[in-house]
């Protein structure tokens, strides 16, 4: 088993370019917006269990089994960081930001079990998430503001690489986790996302995480996103904080 992991790691280490490509298969040409951009608009949702654990995980009471979204299924923690991850895992009932109804950061917001809507204009793509009314603005203009800034969702700057939207994200805080199992990152995380239409109702998402404070090398997650095709589907509410505060007053 260890030999197989080493082989996989060696293969991945030698193929950084291959990881950045869109999924294999005949390239799908997405319809265009009026401005000629590939059209990513619509209401989308992840259908997986990554929110529980981004790696392979068996079922537990109340938790479905899942095949992970991490390339090679390995998260290359530095030794001290791995210890922190175990601490997170043991305290996950109280320490997970999601349990406090906080925004869950990027990339986790993309695989939360709630839909999101992509709205596209020539100057930016805005993603409206149902979960605690989170929003992200992937801007085609401007640069990351300079200096030490900590935002929960990070600052996103976007460009087109052929039909793929490439989004560079920095300016994170250090309070967020990748999942409900305590996988985490530091405020220095640098995330690069790639969004590509792969069919009329499918969008492929991948993200490369680079955080030398926590991980020994960059690593990548990838998953399909599915269009919500019900007629008249629209985003609803998950105003977690309102429910939580009302609960506190009931006690």
């Amino acid at each position, binding site marked *: 088993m260890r030999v197989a992991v080493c082989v996989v790691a060696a293969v991945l280490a030698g193929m950084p370019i291959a990881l950045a490509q869109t999924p294999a298969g005949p390239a799908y040409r997405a319809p265009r917006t009026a401005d000629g951009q590939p059209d990513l608009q619509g209401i989308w949702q992840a259908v997986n269990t990554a929110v529980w654990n981004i790696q392979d995980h068996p079922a537990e009471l109340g938790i479905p089994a899942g095949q992970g979204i991490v390339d090679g299924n390995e998260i290359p923690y530095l030794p001290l960081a791995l210890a922190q991850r175990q601490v997170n895992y043991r305290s996950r009932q109280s320490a997970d930001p999601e349990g406090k109804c*906080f925004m869950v950061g990027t990339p986790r917001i993309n695989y939360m079990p709630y839909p999101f809507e992509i709205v596209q204009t020539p100057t930016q793509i805005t993603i409206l998430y149902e979960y605690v*009314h989170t929003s992200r603005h992937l*801007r085609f203009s401007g640069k990351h503001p300079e200096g030490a800034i900590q935002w929960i969702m990070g600052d996103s700057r976007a460009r087109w690489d052929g039909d793929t939207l490439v989004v560079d994200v920095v300016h994170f805080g250090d309070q967020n986790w990748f999942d409900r199992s305590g996988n985490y990152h530091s405020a220095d995380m640098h995330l690069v996302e790639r969004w590509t239409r792969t069919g009329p109702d499918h969008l492929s998402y991948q993200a490369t995480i680079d955080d030398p404070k926590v991980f020994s090398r960059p690593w990548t997650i990838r998953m399909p996103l599915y269009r919500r095709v019900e007629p*008249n589907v629209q985003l609803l*509410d998950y105003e977690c904080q309102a429910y939580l*505060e009302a609960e*506190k*007053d009931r006690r």
Partner: protein
Amino acid sequence: MRIPLMAAAAAVAVRLVFLTPVVAAQEIPSIPPTKESVCPDNNPVPLLACARERAKTFKAPRTRDGKPDFSGFWGGTQAPHENLEAHPRTPDDNGGPSFIVDPADGKVPMRAWAEVKRRENRAKYIDQNAQCFQSGVPRHLYMGQYQWLQTPTRLVQLSEETNAYRNIILDARPHLGRDLVLWQGDSRGRWEGDALVVVTKNQVGRGWLDQQGRFVTDAATVTERFTMFDPNSILWEITIDDPLVYTRPFTMASALRRNLRADFEIWEESCYEGESNTNSLRNLGYRTYPGFSAKEAQVAKDAFERAAAAGSSK
């Protein structure tokens, strides 16, 4: 009449030097650089008449699909969250004229039972903004910095405050079913000439219209009319119709002014994650506002009016 920004700021500075304490008033965020408006944006009644007149001949810039283009950065001009009615300047309030243009007396036409509840709200409950909950409609657009994104099927009004958004659907689909309620309501927009008319239903009924505790139930219908009347100004008319709470629909008006600051961006303002005021408010005895469904409002109204009738027959 627009006071140039620098003069306004200098006036504020003078006030700071000679009067203390004064900075408790939530300063209306300095209106970003914008050009002089042709209409007075700090007084709703003259604003309404002036803006409607201007709108007759003003031609708004167009989107690709030929509709008036409302996209861009906008700012609120007044502070209706303090009080919808005319109110004086105090250390806590900026003050100003009433936002109500109909009825003409500028008073909110509350039913008697609702006015009692309003005072109770102020005494017992916490304003939804203090807990970082979303504002609802129309309060979401009262004051602050906004970015509006417009496509053929959506007008999204992003607010920096609390990272909130309103997602106005511009196709003709029906409203959500009666059992679904949303904090920012369920909005449908349609074009009437160059004006965008937005009808919002299905609000949660757990928010206040102002810090005086004025409220709506989940049966309220809010109708807004957005009309651009000069290149940097939008007339915003709001009619609130909630027959259980108010004796008649009432209408307010305000202006939204374009933010011309170069390279301005809406940045993340996370609110609830850093919010620590609710606990101190709880220590003072306040609780989260439970709100009113239409059913609850009907019961409260009937009980109040029965008691009033019984009392008056003695």
